[in-house]
């Protein structure tokens, strides 16, 4: 049980209503558009895999051919499954389409009905795989068990080579990690295709591919049994291929995915509309797959000031929550992010951190909050860094955070060495062991510094949400409200892959997802309209 802040329930309710209102135009936008990646994800669910000799996936070759001939605004499922009548399977159709040998048309009448049935059946196979992965996870957790403590300890591996990552991940799990994140190769977010197969060369990370997912999950299943707790695997559903990566993650039983509503827009300059459309689909898939999403509010604080911009984190959490609920994600799958990024030179910085962390804890009591370590104020002074990480761990324990990303004192110096990871885990273990139950004794006074600061941040968040409702979220993003990045709705990468859905748009995957992933809060929706 964590401390209770004297937040006014009416203000909290108002913040949620405003977030729903601010999100609504974007939700409408996401529902009325499609993207090349949503359409390719549909083909992946229908079972199309593999790549041509240049490494371009067949889903890209097939979707590109359809886009060129009939566009994607009707959804590509009907043209594809209509054309499929002349081919034994999707593979062969994709090969022929890549060689310019297929004429795609939008079928009508009886032909359309036949294509629709085939498309539905094929895509349901993909959802079956996702459903089976989800039940398998439930079985394994029941059989092997969850970590004995909260927060779960989250560690990153990033060698660039999946076959190096595997032993490192297994070693990290044996050393105490409950969650392993495989960092992606720098630059993957801007690839408009998902690389294929096991990969051994990446920059500062390893490519997210279906095969890499499968290999790592299998290795961690083995380790889970050895260490007696189910080790969760994390990757990134972000960038230009967010929907496809979400589908691959669901089918290969990943357990958590980084999936922020605005990260790609702000930090990768991906077109805002592309991002919101892709994100809604990917979140629906995550909801279906029982995958915990991790949002990226920590990143705002690395560019903006962590005290001045504290309320932008709250605003983003509320928006992320609303977008996630709308896409069918319940609270237990909402790993909302926040971070320990206040300049340590600021007086009372630790008390401010406690206030911000408690505010998030109390606003989202059922969400597995992800607590991110200091990065911005880490210097080459590894001794000071280790101390700062200790305070970060302490704040995490005192405020009941759910997932703790282990801070490295060599942040900003090198990618973590084996010894860095060991020292960092020692730091976490010391704090967890020394004060696991401290939250019980920690009750900041109702009119004290921490309570007042939390209320101030909440108040500023409400003010900013009001402004966003008035200006529109897309304009707020264009004006640099979040993380100081200015991103206009008609700029950024990937806009050419976005299309407004035609009247007769049809996609068997979105049809299934809309049916099975109901909005988690019916009431704020009504209030928002």
């Amino acid at each position: 049980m964590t401390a209770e802040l004297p937040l006014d329930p009416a203000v909290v309710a108002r913040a949620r209503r405003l977030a729903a209102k601010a999100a609504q135009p974007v939700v409408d936008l996401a529902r009325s558009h499609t993207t090349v990646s949503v359409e390719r994800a549909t083909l992946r669910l229908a079972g199309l895999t593999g790549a041509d000799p240049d490494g371009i996936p067949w889903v890209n070759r097939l979707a590109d051919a359809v886009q060129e001939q009939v566009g994607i605004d009707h959804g590509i499922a009907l043209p594809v499954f209509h054309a499929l009548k002349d081919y034994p399977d999707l593979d062969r159709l994709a090969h022929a389409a890549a060689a310019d040998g297929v004429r795609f048309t939008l079928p009508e009448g009886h032909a359309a009905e036949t294509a629709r049935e085939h498309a539905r059946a094929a895509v349901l196979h993909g959802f079956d795989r996702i459903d089976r992965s989800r039940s398998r996870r439930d079985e394994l957790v029941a059989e092997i068990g969850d970590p004995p403590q909260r927060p779960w300890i989250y560690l990153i591996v990033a060698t660039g080579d999946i076959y190096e990552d595997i032993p490192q991940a297994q070693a990290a799990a044996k050393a105490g990690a409950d969650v392993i994140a495989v960092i992606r190769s720098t630059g993957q977010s801007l690839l408009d295709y998902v690389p294929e197969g096991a990969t051994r060369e990446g920059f500062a990370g390893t490519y997210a591919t279906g095969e890499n997912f499968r290999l790592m999950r299998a290795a961690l299943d083995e380790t889970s049994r050895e260490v007696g707790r189910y080790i969760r695997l994390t990757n990134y559903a972000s960038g230009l291929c967010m929907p496809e990566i979400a589908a691959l993650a669901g089918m290969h039983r990943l357990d958590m995915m980084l999936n922020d509503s605005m990260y790609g827009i702000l930090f990768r300059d991906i077109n805002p509309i592309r991002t919101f459309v892709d994100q809604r689909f990917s979140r629906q898939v995550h909801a279906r797959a029982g995958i915990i999403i991790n949002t990226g509010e920590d990143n705002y604080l690395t560019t903006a000031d962590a005290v001045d911009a504290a309320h932008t984190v709250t605003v983003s959490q509320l928006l992320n929550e609303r977008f996630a609920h709308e896409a069918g994600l319940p609270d237990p799958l909402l790993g909302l992010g926040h971070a320990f990024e206040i300049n340590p030179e600021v007086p009372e910085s630790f008390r401010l951190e406690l206030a911000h962390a408690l505010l998030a804890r109390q606003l989202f009591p059922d969400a597995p909050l992800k607590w991110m370590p200091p990065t911005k104020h880490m210097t080459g002074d590894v001794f000071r860094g280790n101390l700062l990480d200790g305070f970060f761990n302490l704040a995490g324990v005192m405020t009941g955070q759910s997932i703790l990303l282990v801070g490295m004192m060599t942040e900003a110096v090198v990618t973590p060495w084996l010894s860095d990871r060991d020292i960092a885990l020692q730091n976490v273990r010391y704090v967890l062991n020394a004060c696991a139950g401290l939250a019980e004794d920690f009750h900041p006074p109702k009119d004290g510094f921490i309570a007042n600061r939390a209320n101030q941040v909440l108040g500023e968040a409400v003010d900013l949400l009001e402004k966003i409702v008035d200006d529109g979220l897309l304009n707020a993003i264009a004006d640099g409200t979040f993380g100081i990045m200015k991103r206009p709705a008609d700029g950024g990468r990937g806009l050419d892959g976005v299309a407004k859905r035609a009247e007769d748009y049809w996609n068997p995957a979105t049809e299934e997802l809309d049916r099975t992933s109901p909005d988690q809060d019916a009431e704020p929706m009504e209030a928002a309209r």
Partner: protein
Amino acid sequence: MSRIIRPYGDTTGDGMVQLSFTLPVPHDKRAEGAALQLAAKMGLDGAMLVHAKGIGEGYTFFVVYGASTHLVNLDEVKVVEKDYPHLSPKEVNDAIRERLGRKLCVVGACIGTDAHTVGIDAILNIKGVAGEKGLEYYRELRVVNLGAQVAVPDLVNRAVDEEADAVLVSQVVTQKDAHLHNTREMAAAFREALPPGRRPLLVVGGPRFDEGAATELGVDRIFTRGTTPSDVASYLVHRLVTSREDAA
């Protein structure tokens, strides 16, 4: 004062250093012996093994203290001395307004696959770094920050379109020497696209660059760790305003 120095522990001339490292062997007597032998080979006299701990399977972490047998002659130390006066934001603005008579245009980017904008943002964003405001804060500078993962041809085109006086590139990712390859590629692209008189000043920055390698990499200046926006602004004024005037 002597120009010959040794590390300082708690007594002048004691030469004491501390170091930590991991050896790929399980923790036992032999591992500890190996650590001490390594320390001796690194030039540590009377090395003390103060901490040894097995980590993972088959690795041991060590902390060693010892007296370094090496000496450093300060007269033989080579550094890139700062060859321009340091100016305040006001002095930068005044110099540009009075002596250039127009705004000075700076285009900044992270090139190649580097997505880490922390360096370029620290220098350019109004937010700045280390208590200093970034170049966007300077009234007489026009800053165009292209952000992360900008392709070199796009950077060149934009610099031409904006008639940039200077191009600032930040490179944080250094795996497989990506920062060096990217910098060379960028310098070559500007040389190809523009004749010498019209080429913007090329400035790169990042924590792992060697300040002395500017000529080798084909750029005008390299900034490393600890650089603040006013360092960069002072340099730009020195090269683009003051020294050009002096030469004219």
